[in-house]
């Protein structure tokens, strides 16, 4: 069985809904509102959504340590999330650098648009993650996606995740010294594949 390691998603295929945006803007909004739809239109023009992924074996080690392909990770929460999973997809998805640059420009030209566009971009990258999960795993039973920085899955593992799936080379993802990924609208995640599915496949 082969697994795509790299792919691109057309921006127009990444859809978000009113409730996702509302929760980020802390108010009820509709994507049809003029200010929101104008911001969305300009943002979508700049999205270059790409992902890379790897399927890896999950091994439970000792004492809350788990190995998902690049050595021991000390994280009880990650272990709990991957309970019952013999394999996992590890992936990264990014909206690209044009979005980064656009947000930087908006931060000086219009703070209201900056605020709305930033919220939109955050929703869109999460929606892109949903799409990537679908591409990789389809409808097979899987765990919730879990990222470095969640629970006790320390953000310091981010570099190893990026190197392991070659997100630096394939997507151009870099890390600041404090562990922030650039471009900022980037997510890395681990999604476990439930064991019974592996036996059946």
């Amino acid at each position, binding site marked *: 069985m082969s697994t795509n*390691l790299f792919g691109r998603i057309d921006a127009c295929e990444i859809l978000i809904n009113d409730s996702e945006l509302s929760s980020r803007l802390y108010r009820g909004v509709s994507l049809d509102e003029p200010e929101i739809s104008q911001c969305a239109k300009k943002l979508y023009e700049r999205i270059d959504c790409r992902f890379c992924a*790897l399927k890896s074996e999950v091994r439970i080690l000792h004492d809350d340590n788990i190995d998902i392909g690049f050595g021991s990770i000390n994280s009880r929460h990650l272990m709990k999330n991957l309970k019952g999973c013999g394999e996992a997809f590890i992936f990264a998805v990014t909206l690209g650098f044009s979005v980064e640059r656009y947000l930087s420009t908006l931060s000086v030209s219009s703070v209201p648009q900056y605020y709305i566009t930033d919220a939109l971009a955050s929703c869109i990258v999460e929606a892109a993650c949903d799409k990537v999960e679908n591409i990789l795993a389809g409808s097979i039973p899987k765990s919730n996606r879990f990222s470095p920085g969640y629970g006790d899955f320390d953000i310091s593992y981010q570099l190893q995740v990026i190197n392991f799936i070659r997100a630096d080379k394939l997507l151009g993802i870099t890390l600041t010294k404090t562990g922030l990924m650039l471009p900022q609208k980037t997510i890395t995640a681990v999604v476990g594949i439930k064991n019974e599915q592996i036996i059946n496949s």
Partner: protein
Amino acid sequence: MNRSSILELLKIKRLYFDGGTGTVLQSRGLCGGTAPEIWNIEHPNEIIKLHNEYLDAGCDIIKTNTFGINSEKYDNYKELIIAAISCAKKAVAERHNKFIAFDIGPTGRLLCPFGDLPFETAVSIFSDSIKVAAECGVDLILIETMNDCLETKAAVVAAKENCDLPIFVTNAYDESGKLMTGADPEAMIAMLEGLGVSALGMNCSFGPDKMLDMIDIFVKNSSLPIIVNPNAGLPTIVNGKTRFSSDADHFSDIMIDICTKGGTILGGCCGTTPEYIRKTVEKTRKLEYSIPTQKNSTVISSYTHAVKFSERPLLIGERINPTGKPKLKEALKNSDMSYIMSEAVSQSEKSVHILDVNVGLPGIDEEVMMHSAINAIMSCTDIPLQIDSSSSSVIEKAARVYAGKPMINSVNGKEESMNSVFPIVKKYGAVVVALTMDEDGIPDTVEGRVSVAERILSRAHEFGISSDDIVFDPLALTVSSGDKNALITLGAVKELSKRGYKTILGVSNISFGLPAREKINSAFLSCAFENGLSCAIMNPFSERMMDAYYSHIVLHGMDEACDMYIRYANECAPQEQTVRSTSSDEDLYHAVLHGFKEKSIEYAKKLIKTESPLDIIDRYIIPALDETGKNFELKKTFLPQLLMCADAASAAFEIIKETISKSEIDSDKKVILATVKGDIHDIGKNIVKTLLESYGYTVIDLGRDVAESDILESVISSGCKLVGLSALMTTTVPSMEGTIKLLRENVRDIKIMVGGAVLNKEYADMIGADYYGEDAMASVRIADNYYKSLNKEEKQ
């Protein structure tokens, strides 16, 4: 054994790089997750064996196994580099005309202004490696797989400063044909040729098919040999093993086409093996060879794209220049980069091609300011910049960190000027504006100015600077001090253009001292274009000037289907404000309340004719802000509406400020804002800034990722003792704590408010903050209360 230099060989024959290293070593036992460079020490024989296999396959240049090595990643980087070069030397020993390229890959971090790696730190990291390599003895430096323009430049600068070896550069373009941070091949070619590299091209990312699509751009724009080192296609996992989509036959067949189209140095990258190289050499060795022709074009570039001088004149926005601009002067004194950035963005929206950046002001450190301004502007617009200063040290500092090939303004015919500026132009690669004046002053004839121009050109050639990189400014002197001045300038433009040189003018100088200056400026601009002017430094907000420009290009057949003119004319048509509310109350209060920025400006302009400024602020602007702020706190209004209201209020405020004396506004109400070191989020800070400014506060915005010492320095220099700190990441809150500690130790009566998604009141108290801002409006309340209590103390 006698060896030809690699550059001599390139003039007469095609050369070949080797192929992939990491992917081959992985097939030979290198574990996933282990860096290939470790094998230089643990399995040197495997490295030597691989080098020999590539050399036996016919390659001419082997890359040292040092791609991932740098002083930041490895404490023992010297040992690893020495071992890698030793392996390479053993392989090429006794072979004729085989070369060793010292391989440098990316640091893995993004440079400022978008990332957190300072340019000089990057140069230092690369320099550490190159010094070792140069000492060991290699034949060239190969900088490869860089996906950022500025990191590429840092590596090239490090190479130039630490050795005399030829520098080859290949970048990793993605499927859209650009680098990750946006540079297209034209931009990279402009910058790299300016920096004086010996060959350039592309590597990694994808297979030869995509590179075949891109080779035409390189052939069309590059005057240097073109390197093509593709992957063996895109990687996939098949039954647990990595496979690449292009086999050796397919790969080498496409390389024939790449060769035919103009690829001069061929090789491979990830997934390729000695077999790929052998077949490529076999199939292309005997094909006709030629190196790219000299392109002779005047071109500058930014982070993302190049701007070529052509028949159609270019516009250079002049507004980032403190002369005659009190607000910009104030911003420079306060190191307010956001004001400079907003000037840059607003000019770019007027479709200028280049932005002039001049921050010379008595009493400020111009070097530091120019460095900050260049970085700030690069972060918000990708228009190429003209570095404008009378100080060569300022020019050098800016040219060094500029992402691209800049324009430098200026040099003149004085020996001192040419001796100080030309070396900078040569080292960093720039187009330089040359003023036609010398030790004898400004000639008062056309012939005199042209003669100075020719002398400057001759001296430029002595420095190795091409005529293509000089743009002459025959100087527009005001007609109010000499009625022939315009004629002399126009005559000089005409003659210089006739001789094939590029020209530039600071157009508005022609009318200095006269009333209704725009009338003369726009007419002079048209005259100058008629005489062949290549580019004009002008105010893009002047409708008359822009009318003159767009009319000229459409009338002279430089605007296909009149497209640009039509777009410009449509933009000039009055715009309808989007009305969200059906309110029939049309006044400034309601305009601000509903966030109608344009309406707010309109009503403010009307009201200022009949009411006093302070009355307008107290009766319309502040009540609207207070109403929205109150509703925000009651959760009846939400942040976007609050921000739009603040935006509209600030716009109205700006109109009022133009008519009010400084003493009438309480200009002492200042707040310093910064996102702390290590954090590059600024959305919260920017929201707070917008709100504070709408309430009349002067905000000293230090930006993001700000060092503790810089915040302290700003407090001391400004005298402002209210500081707002923002952090959005848990990893950067310790930096906030450190900043608070430093401020308390050094400044009496300092008051610090903090905010950000990761904070709460408890944590704010724990790290020693005086106030915690739980939402955007809180900052305004905190600042109001602070200044009220300060006033009360002063009265007592």
